[in-house]
């Protein structure tokens, strides 16, 4: 085996690739060749490091130096200084926002320091396209352990004792699900991985599939052994082409090495995994709809019971878990249930991966122990709200969740606390909103989403959400009526009680939670015909404050409809007839001379 004195890890997740990490990687390879360092320094691609906003991200080991926003033109300097002369390139280091100091190592950064990586343990550390790297990092050891040392029931007991709950949304105890599938009568059973990560703003499953695909394969094989299944299916959304590619590579490599297929590790155990791609339907994240889609049909949910554990894929007992849930299985088997249960809180064990985004300084993926408070996540890990704006709410649980206000920031994050607050854990999207976000508009945004994605099978979801959306549309258009709020509430209650599947039952949550905490904003829209956040187009007008306008003309340049006119160095004016309310001038003006009313 070749020994290298340094390793350059280049993040090749979706975020960093979009920011241009591929040319950076090529530049490193070229530059290292040029300096004759090819036998000393190795360049590797790796999965998501989490701080996607600062991509392309790279880490140089053994020091663990973390460079962000690296461009190909920075590469010669990094090679020359860091790798040849041993001097760190200070200007490319991450800068902590609170302190004016550049941080050298990834592990020094607040964003990483507070994290505990279990499900993401290999993301950003190994090359996901090389199975040996996974194996070198304890990969497939858990599978070997269960096949040689444990009975299927012992495996399930271990998972049950760990307290692991489903990471895809509902939080159902994983061990119990496994037990149901094992106890269900039948010779043919299936293991399914739900990789139809549809919640907008959540991308942890994508990062795991891209950055550590083998962990999912290994966990599915363990599940197959535990419940007595020989076949597994991974259902991935079509929006994730990179995840599909990495999974294809991983399955191929695992088959070649006898870790999938017949007689795995010489134990006689047989298990294989097949990929199925979604085609763009949010409802397919619901388990019965997902099964229909794997079978090649319209992804419409059906009533439960019978639950998939009894009657699932092609009518056979089927175990369905989410990607992140599976990613927790190998560490639980290797380190034991007690280790896992020691992390987190009484009723929510282990860690949870959150995708923090929206109006926050550090957007990206974080994995934290359950019980961490929202404040710690948003201010300490996330670095607070940019541009000195005021925090208004954090949205969790996607279209099924709700908005949590500032007064609840000290709430520990657990399945049950989030539900009590009118939201839910969901798959772990966490979108931060500031004073410029209108809560009625956000409720409308989510309802537009669920209305669009409603499969149409049951009337409460198909018609009910449509009626709710119509009310929200007229409220945000300044045509709201007295009684609209009450009407929304009664519709919401009825839809929750009568919809067929999780999508419909939770669709009213964004409206109910914003009504609960931000009722005054609804009232302002309806009674005063005003949008306090200045977001609803129909309720605002743009004006130039003559005193502040320097007549620089920048707004004239960005205005797409030529609505702004004025002499140079003289205060300008906006023609309201022509104004499209696109907000471009507001964002562009360096003097704050544009007012929204």
């Amino acid at each position, binding site marked *: 085996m070749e020994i290298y004195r340094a390793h350059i890890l280049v993040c090749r997740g979706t*975020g960093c690739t979009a920011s241009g990490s591929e040319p950076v990687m090529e530049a490193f390879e070229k530059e290292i060749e040029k300096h004759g360092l090819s036998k000393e320094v190795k360049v590797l691609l790796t999965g998501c490091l989490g701080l996607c906003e600062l991509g392309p991200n790279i880490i140089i080991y053994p020091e663990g130096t973390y460079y962000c926003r690296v461009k190909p033109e920075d590469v010669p300097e990094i090679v020359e200084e860091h790798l040849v002369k041993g001097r760190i390139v200070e200007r490319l280091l991450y800068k902590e926002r609170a302190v004016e100091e550049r941080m050298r190592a990834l592990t020094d950064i607040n964003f990483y320091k507070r994290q505990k990586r279990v499900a993401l343990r290999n993301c950003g550390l190994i090359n996901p396209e090389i199975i040996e790297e996974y194996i070198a990092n304890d990969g497939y050891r858990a599978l070997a352990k269960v096949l040689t040392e444990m009975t299927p029931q012992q495996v399930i007991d271990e998972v049950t004792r760990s307290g692991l709950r489903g990471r895809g949304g509902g939080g159902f105890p994983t061990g119990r699900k496994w037990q149901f599938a094992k106890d269900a009568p039948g010779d043919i059973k299936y293991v399914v991985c739900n990789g139809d990560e549809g919640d*907008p703003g959540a991308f942890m499953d994508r990062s795991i599939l891209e950055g550590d695909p083998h962990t999912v394969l290994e966990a599915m094989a363990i599940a197959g052994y535990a419940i007595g299944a020989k076949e597994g299916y991974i259902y991935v959304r079509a*929006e994730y082409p990179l995840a599909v590619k990495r999974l294809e590579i991983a399955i191929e490599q695992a088959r070649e090495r006898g870790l999938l297929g017949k007689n795995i590790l010489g134990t006689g155990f047989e298990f294989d995994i097949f990929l199925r791609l979604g085609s763009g339907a949010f409802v397919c994240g619901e388990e019965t709809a997902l099964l229909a*889609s794997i079978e090649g049909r319209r992804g419409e949910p059906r009533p439960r019971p019978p639950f998939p554990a009894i009657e699932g894929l092609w009518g056979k007992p089927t175990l369905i878990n989410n990607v992140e849930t599976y990613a927790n299985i190998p560490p639980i088997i290797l380190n034991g249930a007690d280790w896992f249960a020691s992390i987190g809180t009484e009723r929510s064990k282990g860690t949870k991966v959150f995708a923090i985004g929206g109006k926050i300084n550090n957007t990206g993926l974080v994995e934290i122990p359950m019980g961490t408070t929202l404040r710690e996540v948003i201010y300490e890990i996330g670095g607070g709200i940019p541009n000195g704006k005021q925090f208004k709410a954090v949205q969790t649980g996607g279209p099924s969740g709700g908005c949590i206000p500032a007064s609840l920031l000290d709430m520990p994050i657990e399945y049950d606390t989030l539900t009590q607050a009118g939201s839910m854990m969901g798959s772990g999207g966490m979108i931060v909103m500031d004073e410029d976000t209108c809560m009625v508009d956000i409720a409308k945004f989510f309802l537009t989403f669920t209305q669009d994605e409603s499969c149409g099978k049951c009337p409460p979801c198909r018609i009910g959400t449509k009626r709710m959306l119509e009310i929200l549309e007229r409220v945000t258009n300044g045509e709201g009526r007295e009684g609209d709020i009450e009407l929304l509430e009664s519709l919401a209650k009825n839809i929750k009680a009568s919809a067929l599947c999780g999508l419909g039952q939770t669709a009213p949550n964004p409206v109910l939670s914003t009504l609960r905490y931000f009722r005054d904003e609804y009232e302002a829209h309806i009674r005063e015909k005003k949008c306090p956040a200045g977001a609803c187009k129909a309720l605002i007008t743009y004006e130039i404050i003559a005193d502040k306008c320097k007549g620089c003309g920048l707004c004239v340049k960005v205005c797409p409809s030529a609505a702004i006119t004025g002499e140079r160095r003289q205060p300008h004016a906006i023609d309201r007839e022509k104004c499209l309310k696109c907000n471009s001038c507001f964002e*562009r003006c360096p003097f704050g001379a544009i007012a929204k009313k």
Partner: protein
Amino acid sequence: MQPAIKRDAEFEEKLKKVDEMLKKYEGQKGVLLQVLQEAQRIVGYLPIEVQKKVAEALDVTLSEVYSTVTFYSFFNLKPRGKYQIRVCLGTACYVKGADKVLGRIEQELKIKVGDTTEDLKFSLDACRCVGACGLAPVVIINDDVYGRLTPDRVPEILKNYE
């Protein structure tokens, strides 16, 4: 506005490729979605001729094929532009102003979401979260991803595809 569907020699050639692909799946159960995905990859969209072929090869009714095609948003019944613009309207992108970016693209191309320009150059779609929330707001043109966008950067980006 949708441009007329061309049925020229190139189209016939693609239909032949669909026939070949279908042979692999003939008689198999539960493969409709995969077959439709492959067919769309070959033809670019799923006109009624292609749906009929699929129905025949898999021995299912045309109505079943059509109902599946119209259920999933990835399938197109009409041809798409050479450059497919997809504006992410996930939550993170939305709170960071994706709707304003979308509005500017509509204005520049003079088409609405879901439409294709008459010269078949651009088609515009709003898409669901692509999971690049760190770069919000995000627009994808074919395979190129543009992040941290503002409406006034739209014209310069579109110029790359003239």
